[in-house]
């Protein structure tokens, strides 16, 4: 049962399966259509949404005006009515699309398709493409042509190509001449403007002018856009634009800028005085300017947040409440520490001891106000074995070492030898008894790192001979002959990029280049299910901390939520503008975080499928994520070698840890959250003082409201240690229950 992710579609009356998804903060699926200047945008859609009838009339008028090309009147009316651009745009564009007949519409579910169910029932048979990302459509062959044209047609407005550099230069001069406090803010406009002007030139076949324009101004752009500029520079012909993902991203999503009202007024006045329509049009069509009241931001504030493919997240995209608290731990009877007692009563009698102290203890007594309801999403029932495991966990936790700046963890490094550069993913079980590696040769290998060897369950024939009543039946079903330290799992047909143990250690997930996610049994060491849904490489997969659910994300830009017993995804999270590179469950299992090559992190609500947070600030594809054990904070690492710390509740960046020189592939908080360990391609493990990092942040109401955080420059103070390997990139980190840090990587002589 595929539930389309969008809870906010209500306002959009129709859905256009042929168009691209316009992904704004709320994961809206918007219709896009051919009439220039009438692109949809999802962002501000909510406020006028409810106003009903009045709006309908207004919209009709607007539509009429538009048809008659009375654009000025349209503008005026729009302003007067206080309608945000998109509120009128979407219907207009839809009807325009329908009217022109250029694009087939699925308008079946009119205005009343409010219930998720009915939507899904309609959507599922027809609409996989609707939820699929642009590239799926683009790659699917000939039928994508009209699509691309639709997308591109917005560029068909002609301006004199010779004037483009003049316009740009004029704006540049203006911005350089404004007051310092506004300059930084207004400078944000350069990059999207540059991109769109260049694309317009290319689209209108002014190849030489485009090249000159690019050469002249590409140097002005911020260095973190270099990657995208490189892609742009290779695109010099109209033909190239077809099917180019980056181009589609620019086109289908508005670049979001946050500008203070004062600065915006300045810009607007300037452009209107100069009659600089070319630029004004671009700003109106392709940019989303998120205006806020208050002090303009400083350059460093802007730099901290910018860098993503489509600008910053809109402020209202991060407004939804996130229940970041932990779920109440089920009360488990903890037997006395006595060995013999423990042996005799698995189930039984004794001693209701509350789960022991620490963070857990307090939480289990009263519900955390920030926690979601216990039953917000259905979780699997605890089995006896799970309870046993929890007891073990608590016992171990009592022996846990308190970490801190003066008490650094010991690190044990697991090197994969003779891996010939083929190690692509590693995971440890929570109790640190098993380690699994995914390899480029399509295999998955599981090692036991305890003396206990890996054994297979006996074959069915042998099993029938076993006395099922005997006490040690669990021992008897294991086949001693198969005992070995490691097992190899064959099944994938491409490099294995993601790997994850289930919390109960019975299953292993692996995701691969071949587009499948496989579920392996660690009892029989065979493949149980191959989950097919992603048609492209699946970069990462992760089990929920409670098991049963898992998340996968890959090259098709859609993250999928699965349950192990369903062969189709339960939720599809669409919104990222580029590959999803890493996925992670929130400790309370109600949310899922995804990091992407579009340099944003999104947090999705598992229940509704909505995107509840868009976090921007990274300057490169994100390759690792970690939640703090209390669920309040998140850390992310990217190819830019920086670790960013986030406050999940407020949707704010609260720290920046600089020090690594290469991609960070591994991040992990210690069991109590005092220390963050990061592992990188630069062959180092670094330890950071997170308590101090989170303490240093002062959150007043203003910053909380606007998200304009001023980051302290204190990476060096927070760095507690750097440990260098000989020649082993660190690709996984794991804290044992006793707070020993395990690291893993392939030795690379």
């Amino acid at each position, binding site marked *: 049962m595929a539930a389309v992710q969008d809870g906010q579609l209500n306002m959009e009356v129709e859905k256009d399966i042929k168009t691209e998804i316009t992904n704004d903060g709320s994961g809206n699926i918007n219709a896009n259509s051919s009439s220039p200047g009438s692109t949809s945008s999802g962002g501000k859609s909510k406020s006028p949404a409810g106003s009903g009838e009045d709006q309908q009339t207004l919209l009709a008028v607007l539509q009429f005006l538009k048809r008659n090309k009375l654009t000025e009147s349209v503008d005026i009316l729009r302003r007067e009515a206080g309608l945000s651009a998109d509120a009128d745009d979407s219907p207009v564009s839809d009807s325009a699309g329908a009217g022109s007949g250029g694009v087939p519409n699925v308008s079946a579910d009119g205005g009343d398709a409010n219930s998720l169910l009915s939507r899904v029932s309609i959507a599922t048979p027809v609409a996989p493409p609707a939820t699929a990302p642009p590239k799926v459509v683009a*790659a699917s062959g000939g039928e994508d042509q009209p699509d691309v044209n639709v997308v591109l047609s917005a560029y068909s407005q002609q301006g004199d190509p010779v004037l483009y550099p003049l316009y740009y230069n004029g704006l540049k001069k203006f911005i350089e001449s404004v007051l310092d406090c506004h300059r930084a803010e207004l*400078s944000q406009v*350069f990059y999207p403007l540059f991109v769109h002007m260049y694309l317009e030139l290319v689209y209108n076949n002014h190849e030489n002018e485009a*090249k000159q324009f*690019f050469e002249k101004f590409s*140097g*002005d752009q*911020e*260095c973190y856009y270099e990657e995208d500029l*490189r892609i742009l*520079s*290779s*695109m*010099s*012909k109209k*033909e190239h634009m077809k099917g*180019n993902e980056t181009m589609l991203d620019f086109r289908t999503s508005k670049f979001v800028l946050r500008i203070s009202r004062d600065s915006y007024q300045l810009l607007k006045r300037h452009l209107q005085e100069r009659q600089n329509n070319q630029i004004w049009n671009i700003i109106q069509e392709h940019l989303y300017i998120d205006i806020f009241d208050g002090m303009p931001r400083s350059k460093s504030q802007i730099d901290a947040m910018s860098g993503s493919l489509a600008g910053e997240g809109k402020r209202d995209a991060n407004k939804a409440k996130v229940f970041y608290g932990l779920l109440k731990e089920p009360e488990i009877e903890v037997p006395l520490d006595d060995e013999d007692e423990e042996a005799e009563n698995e189930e039984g009698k004794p001693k209701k001891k509350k789960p022991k102290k620490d963070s857990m203890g307090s939480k289990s007594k009263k519900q955390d106000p920030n926690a979601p309801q216990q039953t917000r999403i259905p979780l699997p029932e605890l089995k006896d074995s799970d309870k046993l495991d929890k007891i073990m966990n608590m016992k171990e936790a009592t022996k846990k070492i308190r970490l801190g*700046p003066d*008490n*650094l*963890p*010991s*690190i*044990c*490094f*697991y*090197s*994969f*030898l003779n891996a*010939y*550069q*083929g*190690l*692509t993913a590693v995971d440890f079980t929570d109790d640190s008894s098993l380690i699994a*590696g995914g*390899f480029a040769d399509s295999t998955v290998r599981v090692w036991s790192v305890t003396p206990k060897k890996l054994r297979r369950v006996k074959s069915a024939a042998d099993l029938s001979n076993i006395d099922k009543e005997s006490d040690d039946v669990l021992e008897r079903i294991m086949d001693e002959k198969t005992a070995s330290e490691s097992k190899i799992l064959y099944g994938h047909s491409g*490099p294995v*990029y993601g790997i994850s143990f289930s919390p109960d250690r019975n299953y292993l997930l692996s995701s691969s280049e071949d587009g499948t996610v496989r579920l392996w049994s660690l009892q029989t060491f065979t493949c149980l299910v191959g989950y097919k849904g992603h048609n*492209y490489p699946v970069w990462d997969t992760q089990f929920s901390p409670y098991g049963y659910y898992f998340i996968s994300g890959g*090259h098709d830009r859609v993250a999928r939520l699965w349950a192990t017993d369903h062969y189709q995804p339960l939720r599809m999270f669409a919104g990222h503008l580029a*590959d999803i*590179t890493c996925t992670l469950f929130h400790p309370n299992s109600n949310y899922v975080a995804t990091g992407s*090559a579009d340099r944003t992190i999104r947090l999705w609500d598992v229940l509704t499928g909505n995107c509840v947070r868009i976090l921007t600030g990274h300057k490169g*594809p994100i390759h690792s994520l970690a939640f703090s054990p209390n669920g309040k904070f998140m850390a992310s690492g990217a*190819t830019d070698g920086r670790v960013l710390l986030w406050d999940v509740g407020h949707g704010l960046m609260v720290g920046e840890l600089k020090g690594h020189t290469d991609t960070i592939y591994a991040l992990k908080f210690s069991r109590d959250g005092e220390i963050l360990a990061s592992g990188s*391609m630069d062959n180092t*493990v670094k*330890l950071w003082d997170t308590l101090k990092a989170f303490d240093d942040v002062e959150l007043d109401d203003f910053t909380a409201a606007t998200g304009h955080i001023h980051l302290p420059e204190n990476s060096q*103070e927070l*760095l*507690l*240690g*750097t*440990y*260098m*390997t*000989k020649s082993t*990139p660190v690709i996984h980190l794991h804290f044992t229950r006793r707070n020993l840090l395990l*690291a893993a990587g*392939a030795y690379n002589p």
Partner: protein
Amino acid sequence: MAEERRPKQCTVVLPTESMKAMAESIGVGQLQEESCAALSEEVSYRIKDIAQDALKFMHHGKRCKLTTSDIDHALKLKNVEPLYGFQSQEFIPFRFASGGGRELHFYEEKEVDLSDIINTPLPRVPLDVSLKAHWFSIEGVQPAIPENPPPAPKEQQKTESTEPLKAVKPGQEEEGAIQKGQGATSAEAKGQFGLKPPLGKKDGLMRMKPRSTHELSVEQQLYYKEITEACVGSCEAKRAEALQSIATDPGLYQMLPRFSTFISEGVRVNVVQNNLALLIYLMRMVKALMDNPTLYLEKYLHELIPAVVTCIVSKQLCLRPDVDNHWALRDFAARLMAQSCKTFSTTTNNIQSRITKTFTKSWLDDKTQWTTRYGCIAGLSELGPDVIKTLILPRLTVEGARIKAVSDGPVVSNIDKIGADHVQSLLLKHCASVIAKARPLPDNVEQYRADYGYLGPMLCSHVVKARAQAALQAQQVNRTTLTITQPRPTLTVSQSGIGGSGGSRTPSIIKVPSSLTLMSTRPGTPTQPSPPATKYIVMATSSGSSSTQQVLWTAVLTATGKGDPELPLLQRISSLELPASEIARRL
């Protein structure tokens, strides 16, 4: 707005010639220029597109190197059939060809004979993936075990010593200490820095010398004690182990100042006490330190070089200079000196020229004793043929006269005579090869005598031998003409000139002992022919200097009625450990 410029964006396009070549390869003859240009642009764009996708696979494969399989996967993404056959791990062996004004890179596909493949033995099966655990850090400190990198890499030691001052922000811990994994101490230090307000500087930057911790951990102290005791102790096996450890252990950086002081003090004390054995042990420690690739010795040269030079030129290194083989120590130390000149001499410290000056100065002094003289010459000649040519060759005549004076003149003292002998053989050994290279043929004895005085004839025979040997090594085939014609006359000359060296052919190895006993019976004979001869003869066992020594030793021994003369000598050699191994290496 970022004003700094980036390298130019890649607007590289494939050359149109490539398009033509490709078109031809699939049978399209005349491709128009325009189509070529259009094609090349298109192809360039597609290639870049694919490369970008391939990069994704590289990143997710956690590699820094793009492989052919990444390209294949990227093609697969685009629904293009991958390129089969490029499975090379490292690189694709493209070959280059040009001709007719056109250049071509192509992938050579060799025809392989299947039977060859079948018949060749199978290559070894590659090792399977395995998992190995080690302690990466123990409570914040990285243990110095082979699995971990050396605590302070050489570059860091270098920057610490060459750039002692660096800007440190107050409150910011310098990286060195952190890298040494001393989390706790660095935290304390941080506290200190944090409390101290920056002095004077308003920009918040302080120029300060980075702290380097000089305390050794208990383990390090134990190690240091063990190693130094073993190095100067009596057990040779232990010593070998200790030296091996010094030469290879990557974690000695912290102890280097101690070792350096140990050596320099040790030399100072033992020179005074004339303890040859200990001096040798200490020099071997220097050698081991120099062999260790992870140590940055520059900081300690001021202690090490004087110690080494002392061992080269000291007047007296042992209690009985007439008996003990202190010459070998001088040779060894001279080689060490040459090695350190080669490694450490820069235009700033001028080690080599300073050393050369020192040696020359004392060599030129008339009052210099033979031992020191020997050391100076050894030190100079180890510095290379250029030094020999410019500094030693011009003085051969003078030196020859001096030697002649000692050997021909009235018997002064045995010590002087031995010294003169050693200097002579040393000069012959080093100069012969240089002259052989520099001097044109023919080798005329008289000419040599004229040029080099007393040493001329002997030099001549040595040069001839050196030439012969060079020729022998150079080419086996042409040997006949060159070597046969050349050695004959010189042989006779040497026979006639200096009696007793006639049997200087390999068989005479056997003769050596007997002739030695003979010689010992007539001390003070004008010529000492066998040393230079034996140098070439007894190739496997001794060099010139030690063979002279050998002569004397056997002489003494036979005189005192001891048995086999070779045995104690070998023992002596092995106890010094110098000649045998060193000679083998040199030859």
